[in-house]
Every structure is written in structure tokens, then in C-alpha cells.
């Protein structure tokens, strides 16, 4: 059920040798850990066990008399339901697009900010700001203040720009209705690029500068240095950014809920599960979908844990 099972397996979870538990020193060491560990197991692991149980049940709050064992029915419905399948595809597209674009943009901006120029601190602060807007507020801002076809800033700027050249028929696209998924993605990219930029900037600033200087003196071009020294060094930071970004964006609910209310083909899995449970009250099917999401996440999470643990080993080796 838990991802931990996966990750611990390769490291070998051998039973403690007999007699270990009798050593009081061990327990004195474990004592400070126990409250956090027990709390986490109760609050995060038990609900997932319950989700697993409910996913095999026929349980709809509207029909309380029909509650019972359903076998694999819920899972069959999850995989045959068009909405559910579409939301799986939407989740993948949304996550991949947002993570990739914000990662590339973040890299470009991090490279620009790694140079010395006038007002670098100010630009860095400006770049971080989008990340500090409460996600719901950011979603409302994009939906109403920017995308709105009548008075949003995007169409407003188009009008102003056309007026500047003496024209009165500026294009006024319906940003949200024409490209709903892209609209959600752009709002999310705006919020997540600063995150990627911060991680990559930290990576750039941990480069061994003496080696790079040596290469430059030996006549390596800027491109060579970027391609053969900076990029390999950044690799683990790129991976970390991609995987952390994926974990957060796969779970995104705020933007989809606020900007499109899941309409126009933008419903992702968290939103669909929320609806199945909150509006349709189909507890069995919502749980089955939840189990599917968990299994899907385990695949990503295993990769993520491997990356983080490689960073972590390096830190230990230092």
C-alpha cells in the first residue's frame, strides 16, 4: 500500500537480530522518534488502508441499503468510465506540460540570474513573487483579471496595442473557452517556474568554479562549458525539480477547480475523484480511483525517491 514498502525492499528489511530490543540504549534512542512515527502511521497510512477496503465495496451514500462487497466492480468501472479515462490522460498531459515548460524556462532564467548584472537581487525577488501568491488567489487572478475576454488584461492590452496603431478591431480571443487546458497550464507554469528556477540556481551556484575557470583558460568555449560541465552537474537538480514538480502537480486541485471547475476537458484525477465522492457520493468508485492514483504515483515516487536518495548519499559522502 505504502510507497515505503517499495523503497525499503531493496535495502533489505531484515528482522533485527535477537536481543537487540533488549538493549535499553536502543529504546532510549528510539523514544524521540516514536511520537512522530506513530502519528504519521495513524493519520496517513490508516486512511489508505480504509480506501483500499472501501474500493472493494458497493457503497453509495444515496443508496445506503445497498452497501456490500463489490469485488472488482469499482475498478472495472474506473477503467471503463470515459470521464475517468479522460481525466487520466488530462492529468498526464497537464503534469508533463507544466513540469517540462517550467523546467526549461526555469533553467534559462537561472542561467541569466547566475550572471552578475545590475539589479540582480531585484529581478530574483520579482521572479519568486508568483510562487508566493496563494494558489487559489493566483487561479482567480488568471481567470478573472487576465483571461476574461471582456475586461481581462490580455485582451485589454491587445486593444491598447491596436489603438496605438490606429486600429479599432483588435482581436479579442476567448482565452479560456478556446484553449481551456492550455489556460490552466499557463497559470500553473507561471507559479512553478520560480520553483524550478530556485532549485536550478542553487545547483548552478554549487558548481566547482575553479574547474570551470581552468577549462576556460584551456580554451573551452562557453557552449562547451555549458554542455560538458554545467549540464552534467545540473542533471541531478533537473531530476529533482522534475520529480518534485510532478508530485505536486499530479495532485493539483486548486487551479483546475478554480479556473475551469473541471469543465471543458480539464478535469484531472484529483478533481474527478473529488467529484465522484463529493457530488456523486459514490464512495466505492471514488476509492477505487484513489487506489489507481496511488499505484500510479508509486511508479513516479519510486523514481523520485531514488533521485533524492542519490543526492542524499552525496551529502553523506562529503
Amino acid at each position, binding site marked *: 500500500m505504502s510507497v*515505503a514498502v517499495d523503497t*525499503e525492499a531493496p535495502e533489505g528489511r531484515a528482522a533485527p537480530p535477537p536481543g537487540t530490543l533488549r538493549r535499553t540504549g*536502543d529504546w532510549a534512542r528510539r523514544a*524521540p*522518534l516514536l511520537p*512522530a512515527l506513530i*502519528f*504519521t502511521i495513524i*493519520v*496517513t497510512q*490508516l*486512511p489508505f488502508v*480504509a*480506501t483500499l477496503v*472501501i474500493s472493494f465495496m458497493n457503497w453509495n451514500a444515496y443508496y445506503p441499503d445497498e452497501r456490500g462487497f463489490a469485488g472488482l466492480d469499482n475498478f472495472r468501472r474506473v477503467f471503463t468510465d470515459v470521464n475517468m479515462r479522460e481525466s487520466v490522460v488530462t492529468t498526464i498531459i497537464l503534469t508533463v506540460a507544466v513540469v517540462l515548460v517550467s523546467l526549461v524556462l526555469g533553467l*534559462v*532564467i537561472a542561467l*541569466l540570474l547566475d*550572471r*552578475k*548584472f545590475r*539589479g540582480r537581487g531585484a*529581478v*530574483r*525577488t*520579482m521572479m519568486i*513573487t*508568483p*510562487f*508566493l*501568491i*496563494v494558489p*487559489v*488567489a493566483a487561479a*482567480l*487572478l*488568471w481567470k*478573472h*483579471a487576465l483571461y476574461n475576454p*471582456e475586461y481581462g*488584461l490580455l485582451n485589454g*492590452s491587445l*486593444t491598447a496595442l491596436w489603438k496605438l496603431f490606429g486600429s479599432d478591431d483588435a482581436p479579442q480571443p476567448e482565452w479560456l473557452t478556446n484553449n481551456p487546458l492550455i489556460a490552466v497550464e499557463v497559470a500553473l507554469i507561471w507559479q512553478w517556474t520560480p520553483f524550478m528556477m*530556485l532549485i536550478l540556481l*542553487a545547483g548552478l551556484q*554549487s558548481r566547482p*568554479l575553479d574547474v570551470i575557470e581552468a577549462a576556460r583558460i584551456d580554451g573551452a568555449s562557453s557552449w562547451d562549458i555549458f554542455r560538458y560541465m554545467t549540464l552534467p552537474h545540473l542533471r541531478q537538480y533537473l531530476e529533482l525539480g522534475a520529480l518534485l514538480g510532478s*508530485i505536486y502537480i499530479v495532485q493539483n486541485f*486548486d487551479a483546475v*477547480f478554480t479556473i475551469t471547475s473541471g469543465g471543458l476537458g480539464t478535469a484531472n*484525477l484529483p478533481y474527478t475523484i473529488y467529484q465522484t465522492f463529493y457530488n456523486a457520493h459514490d464512495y466505492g468508485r471514488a*476509492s477505487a480511483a*484513489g*487506489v489507481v*492514483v*496511488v499505484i500510479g504515483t508509486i511508479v513516479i*515516487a519510486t523514481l523520485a*525517491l531514488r533521485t533524492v536518495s542519490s543526492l*542524499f548519499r552525496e*551529502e553523506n559522502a562529503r
Partner: protein
Amino acid sequence: MSSVTDTAPVPATRTAAGEPRKPRKPRGGFFLGLAAWIIGILFVLPVVWMVITSFHSETDAATNPPSLGAPLTLQGYREFFGASTGTSPWPPLANSMTASVLSTLLVLLLAIPAAYALSIRPVRKWTDVLFFFLSTKMLPIVAGLLPIYLFAQSVGLLDNIWLLIIFYTSMNLPIAVWMMRSFLAEVPVEMLEAAAVDGAGLTRTLRSVVLPVVAPGIAATSLICFIFSWNELLFARVLTATVAQTAPVFLTGFVTSQGLFLAKVCAAAVVVSLPVIIAGFAAQDKLVQGLSMGAVK
């Protein structure tokens, strides 16, 4: 400690070493600096627009083309604070504050001892424990939502702020354990040994050796936990109603279907984001460390 904090010495070395290449640098450097400025302005523009709009009247906020120089007014803020509807945003704001602050305190209370047991006097297989905490963060929370809802319903905890506090604590605990562990790992072993040789007890060692080193770390961890709790929407929406409603939930219900509301919504967005913006600017450098759970220093 953190490479982001160490920005000052890095460029210094680079300029010193890069001096021989100076003739080529200025022009390209100028354009790249300009590019950075343009991108930075583009990214901050929506926020600036949000702030400007929040100080406009509703009619000035909804013009096309935008009226940049329209007279400033506090009308949007007055509306947000319930001037005409009588709905005060204070209870949701207070709920958010309560949930964020109390869950952050609870997180620290649980995470600091745990991090101690994972770094200073590590238990056996401590990396496994650390990765167990991390793995709980990777499970999609939406999959655990239903059982928590059903449980809360059966014991009468729905629309109770304590349920959110407990949930936010579990949501942030893994990050806090990871962050605190990486901060505690920076306490030099020699200092601990010296304290032991001098006959200092556990309390004294903690207070005069460990605490000064990790105090900035505790502050950073608190800020990250605070921001995440403050921003959370999904659980707050499902688990609370009128009594324990939080600020993000209040925000989602703030858009009316008729009439102009843009200035009001922008004012609301500014007020609700303000605590996070302040916290975030105060701890810019720690933000990465928190979000990457201490993996990037």
C-alpha cells in the same frame, strides 16, 4: 550552510577570475541582463496588475483597454471586509491563522525530537525511517480524503478546526523531519563531544550547543509549514463548512455571478496572499530547502 545564502562570495570569485576576458563581456552582458529584467517584469506583472486593480473602483477595474491611471480607492478592500454584504472575512482568516500556526507548532513538537533521533543519536536503519516519512508525502492526498471524511462524520468532527490542524500536521511532518534532520546534521560532532566531556547534561547540551546552531533552521521549517497550511484548499473545502471555513475556501466563494467584482476579488487575493508573501520574502533562501525537503542546500 546553504549555497543560495552564499551568493555574495560566488560572483566575487568569478569576476576576479573573469577579468582577463573583460573586453568581450560588457555588450553581451548588457543584453543578457536586459533579458533577465524583461523576463522578471513579465513574471511579476500579473501580481502588480492584481495590486493595482485592487485599488481601483469596480467600473475602472473592468475597462477595456485597461485604465492604468484611474483614481485609487479603498472600495475593493472595504467590500472584501464586508461593507455591503455584511459577511466578514475575519472568521475564515482567523481560522486559517489558527490552523496554520497550531499545526506548525505541533509539527515542530513532533519533528524536532524525531529529527534528533535520525541525526545526532541516530537509531539503527535511520535512513529507512527517513524515507518512510518522505514516501507518505508522495501518496496523493486525495486518495485518503474519503476515509478521513467518513471518520470525521462518524465522530462529529466535521467543520471542526482541530481536524484540519491534525491533518495539516500530518501533511507537513515529513517535510519538517527532513528539513530538521539536515539542519541538525550540521551540528559538529566535536561540539557535542566537548559538551559531554565538560559534563553537560542533555538539557544543557541541547540548549547551549544544539539550539544556537539550528535556530535558523527551526525558523525556516516553521515558515514552510505555515505557507503550506495557509494555502491548502481541497481538505479545507471538504472537511469544513461555515464554522471552520478557511481563507482559501472563503476566496473560492467570493466570486459573484452578477455585477462587477474584479476589484473586490483582487483585494481579497492580496489580503489572503499577504501573510505568505511576507513569510516568503523573509525566508527567500530557505524556500528551496523546504520545498526540496532539505535535499538541495
